[in-house]
């Protein structure tokens, strides 16, 4: 039984492609942000598109108090060949991703049909494979690679288990139904 979540139309912006963003969220650098459609951004979400390009797929659900920030490396440029400069890397989030509340994400890539738990900290330059689950209260150190079909958790996050073969089906159904049942108050 899918629970219907009703929201105030006055508190959310809605675009023609089906993106629902709350007015209390902070989004910077909208020129560099590319969203496919049918995404939901709840209150107090921070999305930093001013640092680097952000590309987001469809059916993304971002809960309260999440920060999405592109990751960085140290490098040299022609202008300053001796001094180290911070370079920001683009952030790529694929389709059917769910990010629970109060988590901080600085990864470079998040694969399809993944779910990230509450109070997670995903450090810079992490790569999360498809069909994977990251449990609540976990910390991924920098440069970790989460393979596909895996469950990671702990501090630091460590491989725990394998996900079943039907995770893409479960995750797609869950997020499509969540989007359908996220309805404005009549």
């Amino acid at each position: 039984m899918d629970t219907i979540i009703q929201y105030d139309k006055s508190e959310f912006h809605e675009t023609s492609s089906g993106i629902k963003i709350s007015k209390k969220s902070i989004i910077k650098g909208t020129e560099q942000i590319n969203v496919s459609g049918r995404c939901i951004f709840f209150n107090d979400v921070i999305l930093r598109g001013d640092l680097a390009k952000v590309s987001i797929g469809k059916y993304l659900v971002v809960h309260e108090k999440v920060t999405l920030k592109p990751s960085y490396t140290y490098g040299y440029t022609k202008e300053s060949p001796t001094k180290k400069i911070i370079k920001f890397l683009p952030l790529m989030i694929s389709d059917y991703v769910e990010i629970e509340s109060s988590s901080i994400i600085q990864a470079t890539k998040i694969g399809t049909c993944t779910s990230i738990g509450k109070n997670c900290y995903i450090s810079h330059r992490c790569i999360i494979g498809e069909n994977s689950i990251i449990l609540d209260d976990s910390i991924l150190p920098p440069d970790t690679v989460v393979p596909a079909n895996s469950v990671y958790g702990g501090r630091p996050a460590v491989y725990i288990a394998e996900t079943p073969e039907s995770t893409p089906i479960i995750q797609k159904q869950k997020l499509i139904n969540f989007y359908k049942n996220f309805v404005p108050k009549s």
Partner: protein
Amino acid sequence: MFQFKKIAKLPLILIQCECGREFLQEEMYCCLSCQNSMCRYCTSNEIFCYYCRNCGDVQITSETSNLTVSCSSCFECPICKNVLRRQIDTEKNYGFTCSYCFYTTRSIGVTDPNFQQVYAKINNAYKQEYEAEYKDFQDQYNRIKSIENNNFLIKKQQKNKHVLKSLSQSWTKSEALVHYSNAEIDKMTKEKNLKVVLQRYNLDLNNKQVELQDYNPSLQTPALLPIPLGLLSRKNRKCRKCQKLIFTLQPEKNSKKFAYSVQNLHYDHAPYLQIGKVSYVNKEKTELSVVIQMFNKTKNAMEYSLSPLDQQILEQYKLLTVKNLPSPTFTFNNDNIESDVQQYQKFEAILIIKDATKIQFAFSVSAKIKMPMDQQQLNYNVNVYIGTL
């Protein structure tokens, strides 16, 4: 393996396997030749390949003959078990560091301007640390083998005494024919100060247990060498009864990804059940109505039939009665597959509840799949859990 049943919220629909375990509808597998749906514990696994979780290096079991247990290029932190990454010093020496607990191989002295030499240094350090123990183990093993052989020979001698009497006069006593007792073995270990790695040498020598000294690791300083990263495996699934493949993997060309070439999920061959609405019918809250929806999410036409469980099972598990089950057969015909329209049927089941804290009822569903050549049938039991209201 992860179970989605732990995360799922009530109300729930779970399928009961023959072994008694319950899983979500999407997590069940089906074997069409056995006409049975089964859980992950009722299938057998066959390893297809080994892969490293960090670098993605793959070893397919059918192609390679020299399979390794750990990755040759990746290491794990001995303190926090995080994967190590490369580091360059200000002096341009390569090494490994942990980005979580800041462990470095520089503390051990394993750094080198040539990165490949770092691997060689780690391998040499492992050999030095465990070489002494390996030699001791080999000596102990050879000694115990010789004792066993001696006892075996003595037994033979005792059987053929009359033969021995004539021969023993010519033979001189050698160490090989002496039977060592427990006290003598203890003396020998103390005299030679032999070390024993683990308590693995409790062997029966003519029904006498030999217990040697334990190795005390706390006396030595711990070696903080990086641990080689263990490989993970991807598996194929087979039915335990008929040994036919349910899930098989296939590597994609020019990539490290894998796709499933054969996949038989219960979801693809059975009607999908969903709970629509739960509400009380009476003011007294003794009768409950549950609306259950059935979807055909496959491309094939489907015929299904519902049947209530036997009264013995209901009494055994204290299950409740179900009234007003719909007509026994109903056909799904999915003509509009492209437009993504799915047919479904609704029916109401009215229950009489006894205990308000836990409500559950069950009925069995059997579905016939109309494939082009055959008509195949799947039988399985469904349990519906509603929870508190």
